[in-house]
């Protein structure tokens, strides 16, 4: 049983080394797949110093594009379990094992920041946006999720296979991915995790863009999360 960590990284040269080091320390047998999303800093060089796989994309495709490449790589390597992990150090590697053990019961596990009283500070507008998303996802999937946009998730092989082809490539990919997995009949569960402060890098949200992505997501939802796609 091979397990891989997919780490999408866009200009995260500063925080990436400690993230890789920590995972390696705790889980030496995990394959680490860093997807350099067209970084303009030394992200790729930093990653190559470690014993890990570094996939460098020629230009920035966004986190969804990076993740999809990661899934594709895992599919080619016939990885059994994969989890996505942030390069900015906000995820706590000690929580990986609880995420993975929950995979025994489901196809996809989401590490939720909100399902307990763990403190995790978010801004007003983000909070409103997240509430709205939660509501939409609940209607659509018929399942209650407390954290629809968490980027700390683990997957079994069948989900990896699905996401290698169908992972949404636009921003808010995490919400759409949840919908796609649910639509394909996979069992998704959620466990509480604790987050850290971001050790470096900037949060990737800008409010006016958020509106645009919201509208896009609404259209996706109304269109029934894309039917059969060609190609």
């Amino acid at each position, binding site marked *: 049983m091979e397990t891989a960590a997919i780490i999408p990284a866009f200009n995260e040269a500063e925080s990436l080394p400690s993230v890789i080091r920590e995972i390696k320390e705790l889980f030496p047998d995990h394959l680490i797949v860093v997807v350099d999303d067209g970084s303009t800093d030394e992200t790729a060089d930093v990653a190559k110093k470690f014993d890990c796989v*570094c*996939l*460098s994309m*020629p230009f920035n495709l966004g986190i969804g*594009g990076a993740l999809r490449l990661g899934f*594709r790589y895992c599919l*080619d390597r016939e990885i059994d379990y994969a989890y996505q992990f942030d390069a900015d150090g906000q995820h706590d590697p000690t929580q990986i094992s609880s995420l993975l053990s929950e995979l025994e019961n489901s196809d996809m596990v989401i590490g939720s920041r909100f399902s307990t009283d763990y403190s995790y500070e978010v801004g007003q507008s983000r909070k409103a946006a997240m509430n709205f998303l939660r509501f939409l996802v609940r209607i659509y999937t018929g399942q209650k999720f407390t954290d629809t946009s968490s980027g700390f998730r683990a997957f079994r092989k069948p989900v990896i296979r699905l996401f290698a082809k169908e992972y949404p490539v636009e921003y808010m990919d995490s919400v759409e991915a949840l919908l796609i997995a649910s639509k394909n009949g996979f069992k998704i569960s959620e466990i509480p995790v604790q987050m850290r402060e971001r050790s470096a890098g900037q949060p990737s949200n800008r409010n006016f863009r958020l509106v645009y992505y919201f509208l896009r997501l609404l259209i996706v939802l109304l269109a029934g999360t894309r039917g059969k796609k060609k*190609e």
Partner: protein
Amino acid sequence: MSTSTHILIAVLALGSLFLIVRLVRLKALKAKYSILWLTVGTSLAVISAVPQILDWSAEQLGIWYQPTLFLLLAIGFLLLLAMHFSYELSRIENRVRILVEEISLLKEKIEKED
């Protein structure tokens, strides 16, 4: 339709036909797109040669001012065209993405072998 409009349309029609044929010969325009534009050019030419067609169809549709029909058709055509381009663009975006994935995977494979 007045004579001057008549002449204007004729010039436009001939000009666009000439341009399309030239672009296709230079291989600057794909044949599949040229069909579209050739249709436009030809219909313009026909309308300018026999303006009665426009007058007659406008009357049938209850349009009193004939150029309105012409503009309506033109706008409709442009809308369809814009939609078609959005469609093509989405498809190309998707293909570029797949190519980027393949390149990155291949690059990794090559670097590993070195």
